[in-house]
Every structure is written in structure tokens, then in C-alpha cells.
């Protein structure tokens, strides 16, 4: 075999492998989603949303974990988003060239991918242990700590994308800096900042590890944030590892709900950021 055909052959092999790798990657996505639909869809009914988690062997739904997850998520976003947006604003507007910004950006990027179970341990140490009991508040704080880095990152990126002429022209009209940011920068970067919040919601709605020893779980219906509160991911964890077939079934249904909620959120976020960029 001469040099040319050997090179051509090697090229073809690598290109085939790369097509194969892409097929494997996409196939895996289809496989996971397919399994979820196959296992979960048959059990999906109205009762899932209106009835409480059952004892083993009885009928029931996922009402209390769904409510719990919604409460925790809303609270976490309510705590984390303002802090995240403010910090991102400082980094992109006031402290663009400050040393603090460089350090915070670096630390924030590390927090962004730090193991979430460590966040759970941290909140356990500062909230659960001193208070003496697990609580919904602790769970919400743990999730908020995961929201913050995501929002900081996207807010900073989006504000930095704005053309500086926008700020200059507002300033030249005599607007103070704080007003320029609030009425011009925020408005121009709105789609991007909302994208960041949506991505953060997508990220925390499936988080389990930080809730295991903060919000714990509650088999009864409870909206008391001072007591342990049930959440969808923790219930999936508990039910899936249980030996009862009907609990496992509910775990699959919960998994289906979470996955499609998360995928819908991230696709919305993508569509939003794409439309923001083109306009």
C-alpha cells in the first residue's frame, strides 16, 4: 500500500470514528429519554399531582414532594438571584478593571462547578447543626448557593456584551451611573439575565445531594419551612432504592417529570438567548 492510500485510509477511519462518537453521544440521550418515557409515562395520571406519597403497597401520588420542590426552588431563586445579579453588575459595570473582579470571577467559576454535596455539608454546618434540626430554610439556602454562581456568570457576560456607546450616550444625557445601569444596561441585557435565571432553575430543580442533609424529607404534607420538607429529587432517591415496586414506579414518574421540566427550561433559555443575540 502506497503512502497516499495509507493516508487516505487513516483519514477515513478517523472520520468514521468521529461520526460513530457523535452517534453514540446522541444515542445515549435518546436512550435515557426513551427509558424515562417508557417507564414513567404509563403511570402518569392526575392522581400523581393530587395525591400524597403513599406508604408501601398503597396508591398515591407525588403532591407533597412537588409542592416542596416548588417552594424550595422559588425561595432559592428569590434569595440567590438578587445577590447574583448585583455581584455580576459590580463585575461588569463598576469594577470592570478592579482586582476584586478578577478574584471574584475566578472564585465564582470554581463555585460554579464545585461538588454540590460539599454545599450541603456547608449548610449543614452553619444552619442545621446550630438550629438542631433539618429544615426547609436550610434546603433553600443550599440551593441558593448553587443559584448564585450561575446568575453571577451570566449577568456579567451579558452586561459585558453591551456596546459601550449605549452607556456613554445615557451618561451624556446626565444620567447618574446607577440609573444608567438600571434603566439602560439592565433593559438591554434583560433576555440574557433571564436566561441565566432559567438555567439556574434548571440546575437546582434536579439537585439532590445538597438537600439530603438540609431539607431532608417529609412523608406528610407540609409547607412549614422550619421543619423538614419533601422534595422531588430526594423522594426519587428514596423510592428508587426501596424494594417496593410501586415506590419504584413513582420514582420513575417523578424522574420523567423532573427531566422534561429541566429540558424544557434549558431549551427555553437557549431560545431566549439566541433571540436576544440576533436582535
Amino acid at each position, binding site marked *: 500500500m502506497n503512502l497516499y492510500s495509507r493516508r487516505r485510509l487513516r483519514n477515513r477511519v478517523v472520520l468514521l470514528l468521529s461520526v460513530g462518537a457523535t452517534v453514540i453521544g446522541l444515542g*445515549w440521550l435518546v436512550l435515557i429519554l426513551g427509558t424515562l418515557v417508557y417507564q414513567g409515562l404509563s403511570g402518569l395520571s392526575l392522581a400523581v399531582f393530587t395525591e400524597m406519597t403513599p406508604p408501601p403497597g398503597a396508591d398515591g401520588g407525588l403532591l407533597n414532594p412537588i409542592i416542596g420542590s416548588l417552594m424550595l426552588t422559588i425561595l432559592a431563586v428569590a434569595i440567590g438571584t438578587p445577590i447574583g445579579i448585583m455581584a455580576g453588575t459590580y463585575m461588569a459595570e463598576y469594577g470592570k478593571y478592579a482586582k476584586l473582579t478578577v478574584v471574584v470571577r475566578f472564585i465564582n467559576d470554581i463555585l460554579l*462547578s464545585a461538588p454540590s454535596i460539599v454545599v450541603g455539608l456547608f449548610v449543614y454546618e452553619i444552619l442545621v447543626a446550630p438550629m438542631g434540626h433539618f429544615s426547609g430554610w436550610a434546603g433553600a439556602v443550599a440551593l441558593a448557593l448553587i443559584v448564585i454562581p450561575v446568575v*453571577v456568570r451570566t449577568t456579567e457576560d451579558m452586561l459585558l456584551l453591551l456596546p459601550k456607546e449605549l452607556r456613554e450616550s445615557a451618561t451624556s444625557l446626565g444620567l447618574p451611573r446607577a440609573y444608567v445601569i438600571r434603566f439602560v444596561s439592565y433593559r438591554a441585557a434583560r433576555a440574557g439575565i433571564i436566561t441565566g435565571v432559567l438555567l439556574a432553575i434548571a440546575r437546582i430543580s434536579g439537585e439532590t445531594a445538597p438537600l439530603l442533609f438540609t431539607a431532608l424529607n417529609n412523608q406528610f404534607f407540609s409547607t412549614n419551612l422550619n421543619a423538614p420538607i419533601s422534595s422531588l429529587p430526594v423522594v426519587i432517591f428514596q423510592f428508587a432504592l426501596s424494594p417496593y415496586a410501586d415506590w419504584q414506579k413513582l420514582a420513575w414518574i417523578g424522574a420523567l417529570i423532573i427531566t422534561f421540566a429541566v429540558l424544557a427550561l434549558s431549551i427555553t433559555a437557549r431560545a431566549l438567548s439566541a433571540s436576544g443575540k440576533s436582535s
Partner: protein
Amino acid sequence: MLFHHSTRAAAILVLIILSGVIIALIQGSLPALQAFGFNFLIEERWNPVTERFGALAPIYGTLVTSLIAMLIAVPLGLLIALFLTELCPPWLRRPIGVAIELLAGIPSIIYGIWGLFAFAPFLQRTLQPFLIDIFGSIPVLSSVFEGPPYGIGMLTAGLILAVMVLPFVASISRDVFEAVPPVLKEAAYGVGCTTWEVVRNVVLPYARVGVIGGVMLGLGRALGETMAVTFVIGNAHRISASILAPGTTISATIANEFTEAVGDIYTSALIALGLILFAITFIVLAAARLMLMRIERRVG
């Protein structure tokens, strides 16, 4: 001014959170570290009854599962990036890229439940008996693939981690591949290089730092991943040469035992595990960020 200072305070809060995490973990793990000292790192025993704890088995499991994950995810991710940048028709680029990134969006507990009920039984029937058959008669490798096919175990955990890390490696590699100046590639194509030769000799050397950064970022994920691993690792506190055997990782140990831990020293030993995990991932992620920052500076 008020607005200025409150944004600054929020930025400083991010720093306080990180230092708070470090301080809280150190404080929480002090009792265990005082009781066991340096031995905590090299002791294999993990016995809640006699309150003797050592972190070696979870550390070993964490490293082995992450290694398996990276061995699979890095080549696959690079090949996907190659496909997306060099082969894929432009109108398909975005949909396929988004689909691969969606893999990263699936919550880890979903990987766990899928791994336990769908993937592990499949491996138990197919891949694992196959590996045992093939390598059973080769001296060293036979001990790596030894034992009954449980389905769950370190190999299964590593494979699941590989799928979870793949989108990170693939999408960052794609981004840095795209940042290679077209002139360089065109020059190489112009002297008659094949696509593979262009990627091998022009794209990869140019994008090296960025790719390594992406790989380290993926590694950081794999090391700290909790729920998916907890489902399929088997949670056995022992070190075995066979990757088919059940094991445990740092995060799986914490997730499984923390709420059931009785006694200060037990809780403290688990927090010390968390501290070790945080230290390892901090170093890996910091290195990844520094490398990616270097390439950003070059591009920007």
C-alpha cells in the same frame, strides 16, 4: 453610591461564601483529623462500630471511577468536536451541539436511576461476562476484570460518569477548535493535508491548552459527582483490584451515611471526607480555569 456599594458587597459575598465553605469544612473535620491524624488518608478501615475511620477506600474509588470516565469521555468528546467542526453540514451543527449539551442538563439523579435499573442489568448480561471471558486468562488483566458480574460496581459508575462528562469535553473542545484561525487550517489543506492530518498537526496543537482546560473541568465534575455514582457503585468500603467489584467514592459515602451517622467522630470523619473532596476538586478546577483563561486571553 448606595447602588454602587451594594453591588460591591454582593461581589464580596461570593468570596465570603467560598471562604465560609472552607472554614466550615475544616472546623467540622477537626475532631476526626485530631483523632486519626495523617493516618486518616492512608487507612483503609472504615468501621462505625469501633469508630475507626480511614479515607483510603473512598479516595481510591473516586480516583478509579474518574479515571475510567476520562479514559472514555476524552477520546469520544474530541471525536465529537472534530465531527462538529470539520465534518458536520452547517445546518446540523447547532441542533447536534445543543443535543449533546442537553446531556449535561439531565439531572444526575436521573443518570442514577437509569444506571441502576436500565444500564447495570444490561452490563451484567453483556459487557461484564464478555470482559471476564476475554481477560480471564491473561495474568495481570485477569485481576482487573475479576469476580462475578454484579452489574453495579466501579466500572458501571465510571461508564455513567463518562456519559455525564462527555458534553463538557465535547462542547469546550468544539469551542476551542472553532477558535483556531481558518487561515492556519486552509494553509494546511492547501499543501494537501487530509482532514485528520489538519486536526492532528494544526488544530490540536493550537487548541491544546483549551482542550486540557476542558478535560480538567470535566474531571472536576467527575470527581465530585454524587447521586449517579451513589446509585450504581455498590457502596462497599474496600479496595479491590477488580473494577467489576463494588466500591465507594467520597461523595457516595457522604450521601449514604451522613444522615445516619451517630456520634461526633463519625459525622466529623464524613465532613473530613468532604474537605478532601473539596480540596481535590478545587485544585483541579483552579488549574482548568487558569488554562482556559490563558486561551481566552490569546483569542480575545
